[in-house]
């Protein structure tokens, strides 16, 4: 360990650490610009200079790039340091008048006037932000490994550019340069010929973007970031690795693989939720064509405080608040042809809520709801909708919309008011589609894995619609929520509670009750051919040796494990010597049944 003194305080650091690292461990803040913990330091901007008083060559050195040495005595705030910093800032102010970071720093350092004329007077560009610190260039070369940007020219004419000033086809479009730029001077579009591919934030319905390292959604459990391998440069090119460098906990491990986790469980609850269908198949509503036509789920994210706009409701097309908004109900739901025949169950209620939320965000806005009929069957549900109508939070129009089209920057919603029998047209700023609920994609694969049936829409089947609405036909598998059918929150919670108690009821016993219908081997007639073993899907059949009292093996016969056997009877149908019978479905019983029904 190296011991050095910073501003009179002793600190120990590991060899190879810089003065900046040492200062950080003391909690001292040294301003930096061209420094990023993941990028090898260059000491280019000189804002981080500190004074070596003793223990090395005395003088100003850049804290970010200068290794800590034994016995060093460092001053981070001496007059010499502060004078140098002020001068650096004044020079940078002249160079890059548009850089707000520099303006703020200058203000913090008590700089009120600048003796140096702005270079902008020569270049005519007052918005210049680049301070030529080269962090982006170093990052692109040394971390990303792309070398898409470089310096062009030298001295005061130096600028960040691409090789030969052409857009660089080696640019990965990762946008890391813009991310690290201390002054926000970089628009990667200047460098990259292909559009910068933003990674859509799945949780926000793709309304904003996220980084390859992300926490899937707020309050995720566990609330820890993960690396999206498909978009991570480390996994794409083998470069970068910045996160590993930065992570103080050393928690980044690129060698981790997805793994299959096998757990023995006594019960499974399917609670895979729902998705909403893509309403762009209904061209009349213009979803996908007009940015201001959004789905209810997108609207939900837009008004959420943790959403893409931090809860500020704006039109995606121009960022203005929508003064008129139209909610369309039953988009795809209750639609026999080209849609879902069922009612999505929750849209009436959430639309009423959305109307209220809309009024919270846009006080002077006008909301309309086109509906077929309001299905507000639930405790206090109807009162809630009535309040929205009565308090004129939204105007409810009973009827369907035939077309949504653009006129100017407005969206014209043309529909029928079936109560007054007239056609109505509303010039809206935003249209929200209450698209039908569908089961999560992948539910069919899941249903096969669980051996649970599903209906024509993909919703998992309960064992009995009235008597066993939480069970499935597969013992030990239970349903909760929208994987079963469209449900609102209270219903889902209720079903989930029921499923949980069903599952607990199953697993809390020390002994399992089994179905009575299982296969039994007649050991006296079994000739041990083990055809049955091959057809058993559960591996329940094994060989059993019959022994006499002396221990001599008399015969080897099939044996059925009672716990594993599910009673399908495939073995019974296969057995040539008719030595296996399924209890309850014995041959003689079935023959009797056949005889009986033909009587």
């Amino acid at each position, binding site marked *: 360990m190296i011991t050095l003194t910073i501003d009179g305080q002793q600190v120990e650091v590991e060899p190879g650490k810089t003065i900046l690292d040492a200062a950080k461990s003391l909690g001292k803040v040294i301003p930096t610009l061209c420094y990023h913990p993941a990028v090898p330091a260059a000491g280019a901007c000189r804002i981080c200079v500190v004074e070596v008083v003793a223990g090395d060559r005395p003088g100003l050195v850049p804290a970010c790039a200068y290794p800590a040495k034994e016995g060093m005595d460092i001053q981070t705030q001496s007059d010499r340091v502060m004078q140098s910093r002020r001068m650096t800032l004044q020079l940078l102010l002249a160079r890059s008048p548009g850089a707000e970071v520099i303006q703020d720093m200058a203000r913090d350092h008590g700089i009120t006037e600048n003796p140096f004329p702005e270079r902008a007077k020569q270049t005519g560009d007052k918005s210049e932000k680049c301070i030529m610190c080269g962090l982006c260039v170093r990052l692109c070369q040394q971390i990303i490994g792309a070398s898409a940007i470089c310096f062009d020219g030298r001295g005061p004419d130096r600028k960040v550019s691409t090789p030969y000033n052409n857009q660089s086809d080696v640019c990965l479009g990762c946008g890391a340069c813009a991310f690290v730029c201390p002054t926000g001077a970089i628009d990667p579009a200047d460098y990259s010929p292909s559009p910068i591919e933003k990674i859509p934030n799945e949780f926000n319905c793709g309304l904003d973007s996220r980084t390859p390292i992300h926490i899937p959604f707020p309050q995720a459990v566990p609330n820890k970031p993960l690396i999206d391998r498909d978009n991570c440069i480390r996994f794409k090119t083998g470069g970068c690795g910045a996160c590993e460098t930065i992570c103080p906990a050393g928690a980044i491990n690129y060698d981790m693989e997805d793994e299959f986790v096998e757990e023995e469980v006594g019960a499974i609850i399917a609670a895979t939720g729902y998705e909403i269908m893509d309403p762009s198949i209904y061209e009349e509503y213009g979803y996908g064509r007009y940015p201001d036509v959004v789905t209810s789920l997108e609207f939900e994210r837009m008004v959420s405080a943790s959403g893409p706009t931090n809860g500020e409701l704006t039109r995606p097309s121009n960022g203005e608040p929508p003064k008129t908004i139209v909610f369309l109900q039953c988009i795809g739901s209750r639609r026999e042809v080209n849609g879902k025949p069922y009612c999505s169950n929750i849209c009436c209620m959430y639309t009423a809520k959305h109307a209220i939320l809309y009024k919270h965000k846009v006080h002077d806005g006008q909301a309309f709801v086109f509906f077929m009929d309001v299905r507000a069957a639930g405790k206090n549900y109807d009162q809630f909708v009535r309040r929205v109508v009565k308090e004129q939070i939204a105007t409810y129009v009973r009827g369907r919309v035939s077309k949504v089209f653009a006129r100017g920057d407005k969206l014209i919603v043309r529909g029928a008011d079936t109560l007054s029998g007239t056609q109505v047209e509303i010039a809206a700023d935003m249209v929200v589609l209450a698209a039908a609920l569908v089961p999560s994609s992948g539910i069919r694969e899941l249903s096969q894995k669980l051996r649970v*049936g599903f209906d024509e829409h993909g919703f998992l089947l309960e064992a009995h619609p009235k008597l066993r609405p939480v069970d499935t036909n597969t013992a030990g598998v239970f349903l909760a929520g929208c994987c079963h059918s469209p449900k609102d929150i209270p219903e889902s919670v209720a079903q989930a509670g029921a499923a949980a108690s069903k599952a607990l009821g199953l697993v809390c016993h020390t002994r399992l009750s089994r179905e009575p219908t299982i296969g039994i081997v007649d050991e006296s007639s079994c000739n041990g051919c083990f055809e049955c073993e091959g057809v058993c899907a559960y591996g329940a059949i094994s060989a059993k040796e019959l022994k006499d009292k002396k221990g001599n093996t008399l015969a080897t016969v099939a044996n059925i494990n009672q716990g594993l056997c599910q009673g399908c009877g495939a073995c019974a149908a296969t057995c040539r010597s008719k030595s296996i019978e399924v209890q309850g479905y014995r041959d003689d019983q079935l023959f009797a049944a*056949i005889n009986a029904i033909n009587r």
Partner: protein
Amino acid sequence: MIQKAKNETTDPSEWQPRIVAFLCNWCSYAGADLAGMSRLAYPAAIKIVRVPCSGRVDPMFVIKSFEQGADLVLVSGCHPGDCHYTSGNYHARRKLLAFRELMTFFGIDPRRFKISWVSAAEGAKWSNLVKEITDEVKALGPFETYSEILTGETGP
């Protein structure tokens, strides 16, 4: 409910075919149940024997049914891939298709033996299926050959 369906469709003067159906417990039987619960009518000619799985159906059951006077035998299970017992319907399919070939060999019109897949959600499909095969068997007429074979050549 079968009774009710019968009342609706039966004309006492008409010959009524006799169809024996082996339905797996999880899909086809549930599908038939759903048809009932959904109040979907279908001909009463069909008599259902519930088996745990279509894989349980032994060809002997089919022969027994014909012997007992069935004009058509239907075996119905889960859709391939959806077997409650993972693979029972595959075993059934293999075994029963081979069996059908054998029927030609010993002189039974294979059209009198049907295999189908009906899921628990397909009440309507079940109803339609029964209507179809009833019409079909009506067109074929009573299955008298089998009793002739029996009486002529072998004892029951």
